[in-house]
């Protein structure tokens, strides 16, 4: 039974967990908490070339970027496959003011390739301020370079022509060109969240502490606050939960030869098949495709397995539910918890593939538990919803088979997100799994902490379904017995 000492201990653990989370976030998040990297987007496809840029020519490219400082500019040059000698002077200007200037010797340029101009110091600019990249050259005819421009972008499904206004197009010697330069400007802006990070963290901590103190006081007076009710139930039934989880896990692979090895064999084999299909038959140019694929598969397999297990949890335990009183939420919950043991096992091949891909283990990996908890909470929400629905409509299980497949195709698991037409993107992003898998991939593949907004999205994408699922479950659970 729950007593005051135990409650205090648990609440202290929750608070400690919160503090640990904040510290890990701060430590692993680094600059990503305070700044957001912004750029001018996908580079235009190189369609035309300016011709040799000679001494005295001025190539200008206006742009607007919502950034507070600019770090680098990328341009695409042609050297006409020869060794040129001379210099390019690349500057960043606002109106008539020169903000920064960098000299690049021709020898650093490779033919038909991007080159990056990194400003020695970040250039401070105003947000949304109209800026210009100005390129000048010391070249002479036969000894100079040229730049690519165009007005189409290449997408996996073909070229798209873009319309540019007169203030957007590049100009050579103040004469407008038909299109914009192949360029990308990268900068960053500071996030107000980062500025107030410790404020938010302290506010959250203070709220938790105050609520905890309130709960303890209420408990001493014999009342349970909203947060203590599930805790009390959990403590009361933890032995049962433990037994049911152990049961599910033990019986899952009971009569198979390889037993628990299937937990990591399964995702690895799925990955192998899909890797073969999507890297040789359907070409895909995703970096670290194996890891990209496996992250998606591990997350999605868990989701499908957990929801399928939860789906039948009430119906299959009908004999118990109609005979012994146990809070009904325990059945779907234990099913999902036992699938999460499988998830833990399937992380082993994930890390193995990460090691084989030659990626370092970044400190952002410390944030992985957050992503996994979100995945767990989301699956639990859907699981609760399905298990309740299943009681009233047995069709749910067949419907879920189809919906699960649809969901798989609606989630970027084996294809890059870029193949989704822009007009569908808004709907596409309503998929909570999109945000959760994106969050986990950002940690696993890019090795950087997701930006603060991604944390919020991930949190919302997992807690909302959980609340909805729990609400529906709670509202309908008294009628379960009558329909079993």
């Amino acid at each position: 039974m729950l007593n005051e000492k135990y409650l205090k201990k648990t609440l202290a653990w929750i608070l400690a967990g919160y503090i640990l989370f904040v510290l890990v976030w701060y430590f692993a998040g680094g600059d990503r908490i305070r700044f957001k990297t912004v750029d001018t987007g996908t580079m235009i496809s190189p369609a035309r070339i300016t011709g040799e840029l000679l001494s005295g020519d001025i190539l200008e490219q206006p742009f607007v970027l919502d950034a507070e400082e600019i770090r680098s500019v990328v341009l695409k040059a042609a050297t006409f496959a020869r060794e040129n000698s001379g210099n390019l002077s690349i500057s960043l200007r606002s109106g008539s003011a020169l903000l920064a200037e960098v000299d690049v010797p021709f020898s650093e340029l490779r033919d038909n390739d991007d080159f990056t101009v990194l400003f020695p110091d970040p250039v401070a600019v105003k947000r949304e301020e109209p800026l210009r990249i100005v390129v000048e050259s010391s070249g002479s005819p036969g000894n100079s370079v040229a730049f690519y421009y165009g007005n189409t972008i290449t997408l996996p499904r073909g070229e798209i022509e873009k319309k540019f206004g007169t203030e957007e197009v590049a100009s050579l010697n103040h004469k407008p060109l038909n299109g914009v330069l192949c360029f990308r400007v990268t900068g960053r802006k500071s996030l107000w969240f980062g500025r107030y990070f410790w404020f938010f963290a302290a506010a959250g901590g203070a709220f938790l502490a105050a609520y905890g103190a309130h709960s303890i006081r209420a408990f001493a007076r014999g009342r349970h606050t909203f947060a203590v009710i599930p805790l009390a139930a959990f403590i009361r039934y933890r032995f049962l939960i433990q037994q049911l989880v152990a049961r599910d896990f033990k019986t899952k692979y009971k009569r198979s030869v390889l037993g628990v090895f299937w937990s990591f064999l399964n995702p690895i084999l799925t990955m192998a098949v899909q890797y073969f299909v999507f890297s040789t038959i359907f070409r895909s140019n995703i970096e670290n495709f194996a890891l990209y694929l496996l992250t998606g598969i591990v997350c999605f397999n868990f989701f499908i397995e957990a929801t399928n297990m939860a789906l039948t949890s009430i119906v299959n335990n009908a004999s118990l539910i109609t005979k012994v009183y146990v809070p009904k939420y325990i059945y779907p919950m234990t099913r999902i918890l036992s699938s999460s043991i499988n998830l833990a096992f399937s992380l082993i091949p994930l890390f193995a593939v990460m090691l084989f891909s030659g990626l370092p283990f970044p400190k952002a990996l410390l944030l992985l538990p957050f992503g996994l908890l979100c995945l767990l909470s989301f699956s639990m929400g859907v699981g609760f919803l399905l298990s309740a629905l299943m009681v009233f409509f047995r069709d749910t299980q067949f419907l879920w088979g189809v919906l699960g497949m649809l969901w798989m195709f609606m989630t970027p698991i084996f294809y890059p997100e870029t193949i989704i037409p822009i007009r569908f993107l808004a709907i596409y992003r309503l998929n909570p799994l999109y945000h959760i898998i994106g969050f986990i991939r950002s940690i696993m593949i890019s090795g950087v902490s997701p930006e603060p907004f991604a944390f919020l999205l991930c949190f919302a994408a997992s807690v909302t379904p959980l609340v909805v699922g729990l609400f529906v479950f709670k509202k309908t659970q008294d009628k379960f017995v009558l329909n079993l």
Partner: protein
Amino acid sequence: MIFAENISMRYYIARNRAQSIKEYIVRMLQRDLQYDEFWALRDVSFTVEKGEVLGIVGRNGAGKSTLLKVISGILKPTSGNVTIKGNIVPMLELGSGFDMELTGHENIFLNGAILGYSKSFLEEKYQEIVEFSELGKFLNTPLRNYSSGMMMRLAFSVATVVNPDILIVDEILAVGDAGFQHKSKQRMMELMKGGTTVLFVSHSIEQIRELCDKVLWLERGTVKLCGDAKEVCDAYENRFAKCRVPAIQEPDEEYAMLYVDTGEGFNEYDVEWVKIKTDGTPFHLLHVCQEPCDHFRFDPTQNGGFILKELAISADGETCSGFVPRNIREAGKVYHLDENDPQIELFFSDRVERVEVEGRTFKKSL
């Protein structure tokens, strides 16, 4: 302590339950969702003090099981409150939490957890459970290899190891072979006499009389009588008194046996044995069904050699008009039985509760 206040439980019985979303929607559009209201319990109130044994009696369908389920928290009453102090161990159906793939040892813990025992309690009592079940060497075998008797023995041993505040017992369970049956019965008696609060449902009025302090008699979901055990038991037993046909005991007299069977599914509580003289003395049988019934069978073939000669049947106090007699030749209100096929089956157009049969039998001339 149990305090039940005006418990009512309403069921909606769908006339044609929609099993799928499609069917449901089609029905909804056709406005064809019909429900029959059925009150399984209506305003049931009682209190059980700590340490008291409350017996619950009533016919099948009177609401006994529903009441037990409401008290153990499985069903939520439509209205009314149940206040319970202490932990409940329901002994409703043994072994429903078993998993066939797990071993006996694992199942002891699983089933114990389902019944609400704590880990330390189970560890402490583990040896006792094993000894009681006499399954020593089989405990590391998966349950699917157990015989049904072994399974029941294990289930019983786990279920009765407790010392709960409130025990809910639906019939005294006697499982396994004769030896174990005796042992398990003994154990149940111990548990019930051991000072815990017990809710006890039984069809054996003798057991109720023996074990209970207080008896609740349910009839069609309402409390017919509640109070001192002896008083209620007497009243309950006498409810049939006026309709019993006195059995004829003279051993040298020739008599036939007649029993009434409600047809669908053999239900021992709806079987009434009557001894009838086969010398043409008129007999009168009144049968009150445990559950309203629309189908009767008279089977006078038990002892073979007699003929049901004349028969008048009335149901629910009225002369029966709605039944479809088979093997009976109609003759006004008195029917003549076909001598070659003496079984009678009756189908009533409405569900009835009281069936009266009058007639005469003769010894079959061989």
